[in-house]
């Protein structure tokens, strides 16, 4: 999937994840989280798994985590990816 346009999903409420995706020539992922020291690696692993599933090879992914569970991370990233792509779905 190609990131064609800027898209957002999620909120900054407790337990949520706010995701921003923008077109970029390379893949860049940045994470802010109050639990980054404890769970940062696990969050990024989930994100990379999902990006692989969607075939995303480039794009700027900004993650503002508010203590989201794994299922919330997957849901918010999925929504943002769908909104950012021209295909409207996985490709």
């Amino acid at each position, binding site marked *: 999937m190609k990131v064609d346009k800027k898209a957002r999903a*999620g909120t900054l*409420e*407790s*337990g949520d994840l706010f995701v921003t995706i923008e077109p970029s020539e390379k893949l860049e992922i940045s994470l802010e989280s109050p639990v980054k020291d404890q769970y940062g690696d696990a969050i990024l692993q989930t994100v990379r798994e999902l990006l692989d599933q969607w075939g995303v090879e480039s794009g700027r992914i900004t993650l503002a985590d508010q203590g989201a569970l794994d299922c919330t991370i997957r849901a918010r990233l999925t*929504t943002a990816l*769908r909104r950012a792509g021209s295909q409207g779905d996985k490709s």
Partner: protein
Amino acid sequence: MRRSLLFIPGNRPNMIQNGEVLPADALIFDLEDSVVAQDKDAARDLVAQALSSLDFGSRERLVRINGMDTGLAGADLDAMVGSGVDTILLPKVMGAGTVEEAASLLEHAERAHDRQVGSTSIVALLETALGIERAFEVAGASPRVTGLALGGEDLSADLGCSRTREGWEIFYSRSRLVLAAKAHGLDALDTPFIDVHDLEGCRLDTLFAKQLGFTGKLCISPFHLEVIHQAFMPGKEEIDYARALILAMKESEALGQGALSFRGRMIDPPVLRQAQRMLELAGLAGLPLDEEADHDQG
């Protein structure tokens, strides 16, 4: 058992994860009224992921999808069936056609996701004058329908009347829905009590609904759960009667007898089912069920 069915907004992760510990009998993840138009896709993704990965124990997991006339229902149903939802709360049901259309989409989704055809049930939410008038045909529209629920707020708007604490403006609609549901052997689920802080009002509203024949109540606040459960709790006399009746029935069966007469009254299957439900409710409250009880058979 559906005494309490608690709505949880479908785009609020913290509320969804709280559903793992809330003592409701059933959870309704809402994709409809509590979700703004621009976040319908986000709520669908979030609820689907939650259903796939969170542990809600033995609670029934319902999802209120968007209406069949919104253009969103097909995607909602497909995602929820793919995530293993138990039951669809189908809003704005106007007649048998609404249920039949949803049932057809469910069958398609179940085949696509390798789920048993017919495994997803439907609770039909009646919230318009036309829907109430057609309650009986809705109840019999599909074997998937396991309950009828009343949406009192939208109904009142459709009727052009104001909701009151006493609820007499929806009295006829409540009774109509109960009759239709019971005629088809379905659950009758009452409209939520919407004043979150008025626990006494919720208690009285629930007792009134129980008296009319409702078997459970929709709920918009966790604060109402205990009140609803208490209101649906049978009294000691009811429990004692049910316990004695069941015991008499077992003895009658052991003796190979047919029709059962109990305390001067012929007992038929609906009375037995009612007694069994009483004991189920008592069991949920942790009351003892195995005490010997006096009875006079014959």
